[in-house]
C-alpha cells in the first residue's frame, strides 16, 4: 500500500550521489561540535563516581571560586528536575508511566556516571579545573547488578516503587498441552550483553538565547521534538525552546534520548550566555545509554515434519537505572520473539527491571534484535534434532502474508522469506575448506523480522513542506534529523521524482523545530516510511495544484501535462519552473504545499500487560548466511563470506540500501564477536575507546548484500525501512556457524575469543 499510486520512473531506484556527501568529504559539514559563538561558555558535568549511593553533601563552593566559572548548577537549580518519557496522547499509554529520570541526581545516584552538577566557565580548562573541586560525600547503597535478581523478593531497590519497569505477558493457544503432545521439544537459555552505540561523533551541542527569549539548542540529536521536554525542564512554554539538529555523526538510537540538551538549556537560562558542551569519548562510553542485555529462555516444540507447534518464551531485560524507553524496547522484543515463523501456541513472559547499570534504551534493532539469538538458536536446535537442513526447517515454518502473529497482528504485506532464503542459498555455493590444518570452517544461516515505523499506538505523523523559490528552484523544508543514513537525500530524491527535478538541483532545509515542519523522530526505521510518504504527498499535491496552470501555459489538456526536466511539458512544448512559478505568483496560485502524513492506526491498546491486535505498521524480513573460519586454539574468527538478503519493497536509492545493510552487518558482527560494556559491581570498566571493541576494517568482511524488491511495503513507492533490520540476523547466523565449526553451540554473547576457544 503506497499513499499515492505513483509509478516510479526517473530518479527513484537510482544510485544517486547523496546531496550531503560532497560537503562531508570536503570536511565542510558543520557537526554539532563544529559550531561556536562569541563569548561562549564551556560546560562540563560532574558525574557520579559510584553506581548507587546517597548524596550526603554536594559542596560546590570551591568549584564556584575557580576564576572564570560562571555557574555551577545542581538538582536544586533545575526548575523541573524530573523528566518523563511521554508525548501527550502518545507514550502515556505504553507502560511508560514509570519512565522517569532526573536531569541531575537528586539525593541518590543510581548509576556510575550519572550527572550530579553542571559547571559552566569561560574556558574548557577552567570548567575542568572547577568540576574536580566539587566535593561529593556519598553513602554507599547496595548495588543491583542482575535483572533477574532485581525482581526477586527482598532485592535492594533501585527506585522506591520497585524494580519492575514494565512487563508484557501474553498467551495464544494452549502452550502446555502442545508441549506435552509433540514430536520434539528443545529448551535453551540465551544471554545478550550491554552494547554501546559507538558512533564516531560524541554527544555535543551549543545553545544560546535568541530573539524573544527563545532558548535555542543546536545539538547532535535524532529528535528535535525534545524541545518540549526542555520546555518542561525549564518551566517555560514550548514555544520558548527551539532545537536544531545539524547533520549528525551517527545515531543508531544513542541520540534518541536527550544527551547534552538539558544541560545546555539550563546554563543558558541561568546565565543568558551561549554555551557549548562536548562529551568526551569516556563520558559517552561510561554513562551514555546502552542496548538492553536480555536473558532469554526458550522452549520450542515441533511435529515430526518440523512444523512449529509451541513456543514458551521468557525474557528478562536489564533496563539499567532509569526507565527511558524500556517499556517500548520490551514490546518490540515481545512482538518479535516468536521469530518470522508460524506457531499456533505461544506464551510470552517478558519483563524489564531496574539495576544500577547505565540506563538501557534505544539502539538499532530495539529489542527485536536481541530475541533473534533465541528464536534462531531454537530453529537450529530443532533442525539438528530432526536431522533437517536448518534452512529447510525454516522454510517449513516461514510466515506468509495474511498470517497472524501471536500478538494478534495480521501481516498485510508480502513476506518474502522463501525468496530470500532461495537467493541466499543459490549464492552460497559449497562450503570452503579450512585454510590451514587445525582450523575449522562453519556455515550458519539466520532469518529475522524487524518492524519499521513506530508502534501504532503512538499515532505517528510526519509533515513536509515542498515548494519553489521564485527563481524556480525546488526547496524542501522538513524537520527530519539526518543521522547519516541518507534520510534527507532520500526525501530530495522522492520530491525530484514527483516534480521532475534533478535531485542535485534541490535544496533541503532540515532539523529545526522552529522553522521546519515537524517530522517526528529519526528512529524506529521510520523516516523513509513516514517522511517519505509526507514528501510524496506534499509534492503530489503541489504538482496537481500547478497542473491546470501548466496546462494553460502549454495550451494542453491537464492530463497531458507531464512534470519533467525541471518544468512541465506536453509533447514538444515545455515550460520551466522559473516561468511556471512566476506565473503562479502572478495569479496567486500556491506554489508550495505543507502536508501531513498520518500513519494508519491500529487496534486500541487495552490493558497494562496484554493486548491482541496490530502493534506495528509493517515488518522488514531478512535472511543472512555466513561462512567463517575458527582457530580453535586461540578462538580467532575470520569471517570468510557474508551474505545478507532483505526485501526492501522498493529500493529508493540502491546504494543507500546497500550501505545500510553493510553497516548494520558489521555492527552486528561487533555485537556477535567482540563488543561489550564491562561492569564490576556496577562500575563501568570500559571507559576508553581502546577497550570498546568495534570492528575495524580488518575484522569487517566483504559483505554481499542481496536486495530484493517485492513491490510491497507501506513506505513511498512501496518501500520498506532498512535502517535497523539487517542488524538482527547477524549474531544468530554467527552462532550457527560457530556451532557448525565447533560442534558446540555458544549461547552467551559476545562470542569472544576466550569463549570460542573454550567451546
Amino acid at each position, binding site marked *: 500500500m503506497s499513499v499515492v499510486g505513483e509509478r516510479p520512473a526517473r530518479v527513484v531506484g537510482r544510485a544517486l550521489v547523496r546531496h550531503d556527501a560532497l560537503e562531508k568529504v570536503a570536511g565542510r559539514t558543520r557537526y554539532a561540535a563544529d559550531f561556536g559563538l562569541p563569548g561562549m561558555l564551556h560546560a562540563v558535568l560532574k558525574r557520579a563516581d559510584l553506581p548507587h549511593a546517597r548524596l550526603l553533601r554536594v559542596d560546590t563552593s570551591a568549584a564556584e571560586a575557580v576564576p572564570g566559572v560562571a555557574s555551577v548548577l545542581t538538582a536544586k537549580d533545575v526548575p523541573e528536575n524530573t523528566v518523563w518519557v511521554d508525548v501527550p496522547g502518545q507514550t502515556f499509554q505504553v507502560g511508560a508511566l514509570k519512565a522517569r529520570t532526573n536531569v541531575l541526581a537528586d539525593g541518590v545516584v543510581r548509576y556510575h556516571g550519572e550527572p550530579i552538577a553542571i559547571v559552566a566557565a569561560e574556558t*574548557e*580548562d577552567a570548567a*575542568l*579545573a572547577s568540576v574536580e573541586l566539587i566535593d561529593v560525600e556519598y553513602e554507599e547503597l547496595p548495588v543491583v547488578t542482575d535483572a533477574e535478581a532485581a525482581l526477586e523478593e527482598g532485592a535492594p531497590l533501585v527506585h522506591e516503587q520497585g524494580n519492575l519497569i514494565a512487563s508484557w505477558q501474553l498467551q495464544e493457544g494452549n502452550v502446555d498441552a502442545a508441549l506435552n503432545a509433540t514430536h520434539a521439544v528443545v529448551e535453551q537459555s540465551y544471554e545478550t550483553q550491554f552494547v554501546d552505540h559507538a558512533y564516531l561523533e560524541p554527544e555535543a551541542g551549543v545553545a544560546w538565547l535568541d530573539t524573544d527569549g527563545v532558548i535555542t539548542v543546536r545539538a547532535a540529536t535524532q529528535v528535535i521534538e525534545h524541545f518540549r521536554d526542555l520546555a518542561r525542564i525549564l518551566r517555560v512554554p514550548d514555544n520558548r525552546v527551539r532545537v536544531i539538529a545539524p547533520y549528525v555523526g551517527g545515531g543508531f538510537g544513542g541520540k534518541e534520548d536527550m544527551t547534552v540538551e538539558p544541560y545546555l538549556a539550563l546554563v543558558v537560562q541561568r546565565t543568558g550566555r551561549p554555551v557549548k558542551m562536548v562529551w*568526551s569519548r*569516556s563520558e559517552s562510553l561510561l554513562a551514555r545509554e546502552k542496548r538492553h542485555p536480555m536473558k532469554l529462555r526458550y522452549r520450542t516444540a515441533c511435529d515430526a515434519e518440523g512444523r512449529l507447534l509451541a513456543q514458551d518464551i521468557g525474557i528478562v531485560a536489564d533496563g539499567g537505572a532509569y526507565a527511558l524507553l524500556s517499556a517500548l524496547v520490551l514490546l518490540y522484543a515481545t512482538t518479535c520473539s516468536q521469530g518470522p515463523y508460524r506457531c499456533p501456541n505461544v506464551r510470552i513472559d517478558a519483563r524489564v527491571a531496574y539495576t544500577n547499570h547505565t540506563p538501557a534504551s534505544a539502539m538499532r534493532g530495539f529489542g527485536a534484535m536481541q530475541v533473534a539469538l533465541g528464536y534462531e538458536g531454537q530453529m537450529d536446535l530443532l533442525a539438528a534434532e530432526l536431522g533437517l537442513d536448518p534452512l529447510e526447517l525454516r522454510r517449513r515454518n516461514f510466515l506468509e502474508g495474511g498470517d497472524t502473529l501471536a500478538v494478534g497482528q495480521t501481516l498485510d504485506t508480502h513476506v518474502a522469506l522463501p525468496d530470500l532464503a532461495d537467493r541466499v542459498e543459490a549464492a552460497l555455493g559449497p562450503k570452503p575448506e579450512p585454510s590451514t590444518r587445525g582450523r575449522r570452517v562453519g556455515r550458519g544461516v539466520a532469518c529475522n523480522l524487524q518492524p519499521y515505523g513506530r508502534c501504532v499506538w503512538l499515532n505517528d505523523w510526519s509533515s513536509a513542506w515542498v515548494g519553489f523559490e521564485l527563481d524556480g528552484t525546488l526547496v524542501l523544508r522538513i524537520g527530519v534529523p539526518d543521522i547519516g543514513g541518507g534520510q534527507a537525500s532520500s526525501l530530495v530524491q522522492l520530491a525530484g521524482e514527483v516534480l521532475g527535478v534533478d535531485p542535485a538541483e534541490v535544496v533541503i532545509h532540515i532539523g529545526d523545530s522552529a522553522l521546519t515542519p515537524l517530522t517526528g523522530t529519526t528512529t524506529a526505521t521510520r523516516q523513509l516510511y513516514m517522511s517519505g510518504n509526507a514528501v510524496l504527498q506534499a509534492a503530489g499535491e503541489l504538482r496537481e495544484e500547478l497542473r491546470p496552470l501548466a496546462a494553460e501555459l502549454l495550451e494542453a489538456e491537464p492530463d497531458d501535462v507531464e512534470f519533467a526536466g525541471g518544468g512541465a511539458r506536453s509533447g514538444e512544448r515545455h515550460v520551466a519552473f522559473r516561468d511556471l512559478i512566476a506565473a503562479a505568483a502572478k495569479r496567486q496560485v500556491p506554489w508550495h504545499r505543507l502536508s501531513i502524513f498520518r500513519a494508519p492506526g491500529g487496534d486500541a491498546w487495552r490493558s497494562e500487560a496484554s493486548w491482541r491486535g496490530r502493534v506495528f505498521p509493517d515488518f522488514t524480513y531478512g535472511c543472512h548466511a555466513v561462512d567463517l573460519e575458527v582457530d580453535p*586454539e*586461540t578462538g*580467532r574468527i575470520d569471517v570468510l563470506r557474508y551474505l545478507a538478503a532483505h526485501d526492501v519493497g522498493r529500493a529508493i536509492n540502491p546504494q543507500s540500501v546497500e550501505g545500510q545493510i553493510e553497516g548494520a552487518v558489521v555492527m552486528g558482527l561487533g555485537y556477535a564477536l*567482540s563488543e561489550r560494556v*564491562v561492569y564490576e559491581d556496577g562500575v563501568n*570498566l*570500559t571507559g*576508553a575507546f*581502546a*577497550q570498546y*571493541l568495534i*570492528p*575495524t*576494517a*580488518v*575484522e569487517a568482511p566483504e559483505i554481499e548484500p542481496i536486495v530484493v524488491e517485492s513491490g510491497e511495503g507501506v513506505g513511498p513507492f512501496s518501500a520498506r525501512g532498512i535502517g535497523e533490520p539487517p542488524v538482527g540476523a547477524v549474531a544468530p547466523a554467527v552462532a550457527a556457524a560457530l556451532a557448525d565449526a565447533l560442534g558446540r553451540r555458544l549461547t552467551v554473547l559476545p562470542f*569472544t*575469543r*576466550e569463549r570460542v*576457544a*573454550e567451546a
Partner: protein
Amino acid sequence: MIPRPFDYERPRSVEEAVSILAGAGGRDAKVIAGGQSLVPMLSLGLARPDVLVDLSRLELNGIEAVDRRVRIGATTCHRTLELDPEARRLLPLAAEAARHVGNPRVRNRGTFGGSLAHADPAAELPVVAVAHGGEVVAHGPGGERRIPLAEFFLGYLETALGPDEVLVAVELERPPETSGVGFHEEAQRADDFALACAAAVVAPDGHARVVLGGVGDRPLRFEGPTDELPAAVEAAVEPEEDVFVSAAFRRRLAGVCARRALARAKEDAGA
C-alpha cells in the same frame, strides 16, 4: 577529557634535557618524544605531570650496524622499523613486530626509545628488544650509562632509568646469521595491544630463546630446547585477568604465541 595544564621544555641537547630533569626538584617531570602513549594518557587523566621535557626535536633517530650490534636511536619511529629496507634487513624481528604496534598513525609518530622507556608490558617492541639482548644507552648527570636489556624492565611501566636519565639509544645484539627469528601476536583486533605476543630466536642446534609479552608485568624471557619451551612458558607465566580475558586464557595464548613464534623462527633458520 583534555590534558590538564603543565609546563613544557624543549631542550636543544641531551645534556640540557638531563639538567632539566635533574633540576625538577619535587616536580613530576616526564619525558615526551612521539607522545603516542603519553598524550592519550594525559587526555584520559591517567598521567598528570608538572613538566614535560620534549625530546622529539633532538637528532636521536637513525639505525646503524655496529659490529654484531644494531644501534637504534631513541626517536626512531616504528614506521622506520616497519618499512625502511635497511632497517628491515638488519632487524627483521623488529620489522615484523612493528607492524603490530598501534595503528599506522601511531607507528608514524611513536618512537622505539619511547616504547621501551614507557615499558607497557603488552607492548611489542620491549619484547623484541629483550629477545635480541643488548644494552640501553642512557644519559644522566654522570654521563653515559649502559643498562643491559635483561635488567632494564622492572615492572608495569617501570624501568631501570633514573628520573634524571634520558634514553638516547638502544643497542641490540644481532643473532648469528645461522639462527632464525619469529614473532607471533594474538590481539583482540588488528592493531590492539597484545593479549599475548612472543619473539623467538632459534639457533641451528635447536637451542632457542623466546620472550613473551602481555602475560606478566614485563617481557618474560625463556631459554631452552625449542620443543620444550612452549610448555615451559605456559607453566611458568602468571598473567593477570583484565576486562578482556581471564588469566587462564592469557596463559593459554602465551603457549600458542611461543609455539608459533618458535615455529616461524625455526622455518626462518632453515630458509
